[in-house]
């Protein structure tokens, strides 16, 4: 116990000294640091902050120090997080390498693979993207068709992926490919890594109903990848894929957590604040029906935050993300959707603009909320649809029986 207190004191002192003042303010979306070969730092302090944290491995505090991680225990990691939160320190690095690839590479990668890929992730030198979804596959992820065929020491990869976030900006991709077509769909998949600069890789951004998006379609045309880049066993990629999905869900369930709290613009700070502002109310929201709905939403948000907390505490005694991640993911996304629906009700016509030109018919904040409302509809689709999460809860958590579907290969439903 004493050691932890000691650690806390040291961490606090170090942060106090090394975290630039400008890194202790809320971050706007364009200030997020993604790293990579051509990193952008809107604020030079961001670069400094990343370098300082990366030097200690504190971008990935609990990863082993032999691969550049912080080498902290779980408890120390939690303390560090608390201390950072205490001073409002920004996350120095946002990265799919950290949140998704790293944990499974540490679990399934060879020592060579870890040595090659983990340190650059820790330092934010390589930006990763995820090659999972395919146009035809959707929720039935394992029905993927991108294929890798061995040719000497290389695999030749052909096919396409969709919903690849930031594929146009990523340096490397971790990718699911089919390596055996003659077995049930889950048994012929492999997990492979390759450089996005490889010949034959092209990307095309996807426009959403809410406007421009980080998503891309990604095409592979005879892309040549060294066979040693295969992670885990050949044809056993589905095991890794599922593990990674759990990490993704845990990350996404954060949505609902922030949804009850203050966020960026002052306008959207709270739904009830917006509702009162647009009605000119000062002490009590005059629309009693909306007030009741907002209270319902906020009560659910608070209970959800308690549940996330409980789930974390329970996980401390357990072993990483559990099946309840599906519940948290789903509920969190639904909460976020509810929040935006309520914001629309709160703001009336003012939430229905698309662009404002030179005029002031709609403020920037208002237009942002309209777009975010539209964007929120994707929350219950990306990272596993609501339907998939409910299936997982029903079967894995509640142990309800599988429907015996005739004449087909059964899959995760």
């Amino acid at each position: 116990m004493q050691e932890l207190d000691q650690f806390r004191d040291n961490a606090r002192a170090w942060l106090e000294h090394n975290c630039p003042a400008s890194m202790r303010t809320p971050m706007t979306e364009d200030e997020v640091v993604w790293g990579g070969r051509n990193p952008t730092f809107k604020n030079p302090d961001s670069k400094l902050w990343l370098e300082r944290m990366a030097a200690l491995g504190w971008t990935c505090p609990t990863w082993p120090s032999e691969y550049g991680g912080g080498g902290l225990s779980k408890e120390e990691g939690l303390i560090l997080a608390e201390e950072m939160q205490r001073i409002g320190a920004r996350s120095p690095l946002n990265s799919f390498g950290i949140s998704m690839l790293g944990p499974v590479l540490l679990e399934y990668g060879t020592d060579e693979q870890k040595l090659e890929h983990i340190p650059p992730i820790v330092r934010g030198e390589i930006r990763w993207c995820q090659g999972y979804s395919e146009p035809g596959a959707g929720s039935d992820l394992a029905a993927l068709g991108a294929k890798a065929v061995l040719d000497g020491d290389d695999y030749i990869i052909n096919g396409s992926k969709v919903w690849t976030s930031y594929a146009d900006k990523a340096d490397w991709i971790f990718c699911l490919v089919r390596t055996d077509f003659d077995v049930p769909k889950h048994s012929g998949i492999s997990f492979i890594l390759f450089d996005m600069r490889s010949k034959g890789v092209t990307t095309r951004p996807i426009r959403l109903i809410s406007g421009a998006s980080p998503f891309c379609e990604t095409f592979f045309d005879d892309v040549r990848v060294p066979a040693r880049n295969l992670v885990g066993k050949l044809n056993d990629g589905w095991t890794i894929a599922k593990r990674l999905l759990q990490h993704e869900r845990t990350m996404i369930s954060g949505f609902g957590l922030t949804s009850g709290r203050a966020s960026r613009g002052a306008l959207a700070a709270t739904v009830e604040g917006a509702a009162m502002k647009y009605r000119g109310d000062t002490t009590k929201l005059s629309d009693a029906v909306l007030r009741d709905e907002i209270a319902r939403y906020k009560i659910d948000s608070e209970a959800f935050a308690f549940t996330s907390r409980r789930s974390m505490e329970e996980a401390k005694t357990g072993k990483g993300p559990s099946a309840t991640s599906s519940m948290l993911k789903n509920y969190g996304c639904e909460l976020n959707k509810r929040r935006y629906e309520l914001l629309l009700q709160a703001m009336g016509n003012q939430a229905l603009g698309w662009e404002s030109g030179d005029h002031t018919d709609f403020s920037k904040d208002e237009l942002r909320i309209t777009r975010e409302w539209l964007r929120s509809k994707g929350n219950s689709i990306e990272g596993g649809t609501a339907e998939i999460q409910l299936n997982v809860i029903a079967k894995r958590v509640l142990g309800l029986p599988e429907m015996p579907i005739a004449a087909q290969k059964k899959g995760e439903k």
Partner: protein
Amino acid sequence: MSMVLNEDQMMLKDAVRGYCLTNAPVSVLRYLRDQQSEDGFSRELWRQMVDLGWAGMTIPEQYDGFGFGYGGLEIVLEETGRTLVPTPLVSTVLLCATAINLGGSEEQKSALLPAIVKGELIMALALEETPFHNPTRIATTARPQGAGYVLNGSKQLVIDGHIADKLIVVARTAGGQDDKEGISLFMVDRTATGVDVRRTLMVDSRNAAHVTLNNVQVDEEALLGDLHNGFIVLEKTLDIGRIGLAAEMLGNAQEVFDRIIDYLKQREQFGVLIGSFQGLQHRAAHMYSELELCRSAVRRAFDELDGAQEDIPILASIAKAKLSEVLCNISNEGVQMHGGIGMTDEFDIGFYLKRARVAQVLLGDATFHRDRYATLSGF
């Protein structure tokens, strides 16, 4: 009372539907949006629609209309709602022609209604002043001056305001902020001195504008209906507008629903058609049930408009409350059930989601109409 369409109406429906599918599909709205069309609608298509008689559907024959009744407009609105084709039907035919027909003098009717029938006149109703529908909260003033009036104020969400030749402006000539008494209607040329009309780009690409009136002078013929007593005409007009909007929304909802069902029948996942999953089946069955109720609410209201015209306010609130709620739900399900592709701009379903929200606030959202229903029902 008739809850089903008669033979004439069925024929009209087939014709309108055929026209919309061929000439005015969703791609029209997409094109107008992407081209940043200044008008926001196609004058060419509108000309064709006028030639088909759509603008004169509800206008009495003595004013060159076709007297097909509101039941005809119902069909046109529902079918144009299916393809989201932008037209001045709501602004000009549903709202303004109705207001003129209800409140106008013989001279006004003779001057304006035939022009609407011929598609030579586009009009817009300038009503709202706050972000929430509230037909009595009128701060725009009309002060008498000489034989006419001077108008001052500002209006938002004026559907088709920027393409209208004339506006019907709801103004206060007496009374306090929320009084029904003291409201009067004035017809104002869009190009009159002091009128500033600025198009507002809405999320659903529906045509709307912001209107500012700065010492706008009108003569006494500009008054539509009785001085101070405009609310009676206004409320009747709004109720007919709500019923018409509900018909359009029914078209929106039906189209989304049909697309969902089609998709459920063709999309395979896990080796089966996704429409065979009971979870989705039950949601589809619920939507179907709600949609049936919506259709009945719309039909019932239109039938009454062409009949005894009793209980119109309550029937209007039933239809608008029900459609507002159901269309929002179905348009959400439209995206969710299509999955990722439903989130892309390339795919049409998002247009309906966007339209749903604008349509639901126009002339009062679900909460507004439930409140109004309760008040009208005495509780």
